[in-house]
Structure formats: C-alpha cells, structure tokens
C-alpha cells in the first residue's frame, strides 16, 4: 500500500517536473489566433471536420480560412462563438439537401434548329440537324445544364425527373434540437 503510494507519487513528481521544464525550455511561439480558436473547440479530437484534430482545424481556420461551421460536436453553438471571435458571418451547419435528378427538355414549338445545343452537349443526348427541330434523349441526359447558355431562343428548360420506385429515397428527418435554458 505504502509502496504503491510512494511509487506512483515518485513517478508523478518526476514526470510532472520533466513536463514543466520541457514546457518552458521547448516553448514555441505559435499563432496566437490559432490558440484562441483552439480554446473554443470542444477538444474531442474526433476529426469529423476533416482535419486530424482540434488544433489542426484551429490552425487551418486561422491561416487559410477554413469554414468555421465544420465542427460536429461543437454544433451551431461553437460556430456562433467562432463567428464572434473572427468577425465572420455565421453559417448554419448544412443539412444534406437532396437534389432530384433533372433532365433537359426542349420546347419544340420554339426550337429554331440552330444545332448550338447539340455542340454543347457533352454526352450527345440531343438529336436533330440544322433547321430541323431538336429533341433530348432523356435517358442519356445528365442534367449538366451546359446546353442552357448557348440556346439563342431560351427554349430549353430543366425538368425534374418524376419520382419512381427506382429513384425514390427516404428523406432525412430534419428536426431541430430544442435548447433547454
């Protein structure tokens, strides 16, 4: 019992002294802003922000302006504090937005047959020839929107693909957590 106490106290004393002296002798002046940012982060080192830990994330924010709303454990609260500290705009942590697949649709009444959209289409999903009406093969269309700018009569629109059992997916339940004060 006494031996255990003495050994552990001895280890703690020796290591504590060594750490204390190392902190003084090997002190490196870092970016003070990064240290301030680091103090606001939750220090869970979970790496969900995409950086290896809280300190690297803090340094990334301080030096090359990484987004301030990437911290999952800190949540909006942490992002607010960072926004206050850095004088940046607060952005809510984005919920995943589901974007439906779209396909281009040519209004065949207005099409003048200029072939400009055919040249723009990267996947050859538009058929037609000069002075003939064009149309989109919706099966091949990727919804890339590259055919929209060249059209001189603006007769191309993007339509959302109708929902079918093949492209339907569960929606994330988005419910805000209530803060109890």
């Amino acid at each position, binding site marked *: 019992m006494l*031996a*255990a106490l003495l*050994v*552990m106290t001895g*280890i*703690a004393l020796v*290591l*504590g002294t*060594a*750490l204390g002296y*190392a*902190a003084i*002798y*090997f*002190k*490196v002046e870092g970016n003070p802003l990064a240290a301030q940012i680091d103090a606001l982060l939750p220090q869970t*080192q*979970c*790496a*969900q922000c*995409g950086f*290896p*830990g809280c*300190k*690297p994330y803090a340094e990334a924010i301080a030096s090359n302006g990484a987004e301030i709303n990437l911290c999952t454990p800190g949540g909006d609260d942490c992002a607010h504090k960072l926004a206050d500290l850095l004088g940046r705009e607060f952005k809510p942590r984005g919920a995943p937005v*589901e974007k439906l697949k779209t396909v281009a649709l040519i209004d065949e009444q207005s099409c003048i047959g200029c072939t400009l959209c055919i040249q723009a289409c990267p996947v050859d999903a538009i058929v037609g020839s000069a002075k003939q009406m064009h149309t989109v093969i919706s099966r091949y269309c990727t919804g890339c929107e590259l055919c929209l700018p060249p059209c001189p009569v603006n007769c191309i629109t993007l339509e959302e693909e109708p929902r079918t059992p093949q492209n339907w*997916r*569960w929606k994330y339940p988005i419910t805000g957590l209530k803060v109890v004060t």
Partner: protein
Amino acid sequence: MSYLFVILGAVLVNNVVFVRILGLCPFMGVSKKLDTAIGMGLATTFVLTLASGTSYLIDHYLLVPFDLDYMRTLAFIVVIAAIVQITELVIHKTSPLLQQVLGIYLPLITTNCAVLGIPLLSAKESYGLLESLLFGFGSAVGFTFALILFAGVRERLDGADVPLPFRGVPIAMMTAGFMSLAFMGFAGLDRFHH
C-alpha cells in the same frame, strides 16, 4: 525465429484493429484520406514502440520489485502520456520537418486504447525488452497497415454509388466489419513454431 513470429503475429494474426478491436477511434476518425492515414500510422508506430519500451522499463524495474503488478494500468497511462507529451514538445522545438509529419498526430494518440493495451498485453505475456519493443512495433505496423488499407477503401467509397441511408459512417462500419472478417483468415499463422 521467435522474434519474427512475434512481429508476424502482431501485424497479421492478432492485428490490433481487426482482431483485438483496439484503437478504433483513430481508425474510424483519421481514415478519410490516405495521406492523413499514413501520418497517423507513422505517429502511432513511433508512440507505440516508445510506449512499449518505457512500459517494460517501468514494469521491470519499478512495479515488479515492489510487487505492484496491479498498478500497471495506472502507472503505464501516466508514464506513456507524459513521455509522449515531452517528445512532442521536443520535436516541436527541434525538428520542423518531423513536426509536420508526426507532430499534429502525436497529441491525438497520447494514450488511446491501443497504445495502452499493447504494453499491458506484453506485460501479461512477460516479454523481455527486445520482445516488448518488437511486439509494440509490430502491432503499430499492423495498425498502420489496417489504417492505410481502410483509408484506400474509404476514398473509393466516396465515389461509389452507395444507397443514401448507408452513406458516410454506416458503410464505413460495414466495410470495417468485412475487413475484420478477412483478417480472421490469418488465424493460426503464428502457431506452427510450437
């Protein structure tokens, strides 16, 4: 020859992550990109080898003579954490290059379960100094190996058409499970020298 089996056993047969299920937090957390995975692997190798050595010395010269085997967990965790912190401070001051490669990862693994578990295991197996070091080093190589393999898979998963409910962590968990199953194929590889 038995040293070779200690390493082989630690890398493949009793892989820290896949078979002993230790060190899962960095395994899931830092495996999104290949280059961070390599950095983390290198840092873990360094820390784990260092931790195995120091823990052996503490165990052999301090705990065993005073009959304090039951204090291992406590003593190891304090010593490893302090040694790693001191090393990090020294590296930060002396070598900017090494700091870039290892420095940012060192505080993260001051003591994770793998870094504490491996010295405890080698104390339980009553390995000698060289065996402890090799066991620590081998386990860390196994950890690095697992982390790099998994990061490679996860980078490809990013581009794969994963059903929406499984995107992100769920598919990563399932992948980890499958890789763990695959590593069971190495079971017994270290036995035939007995």
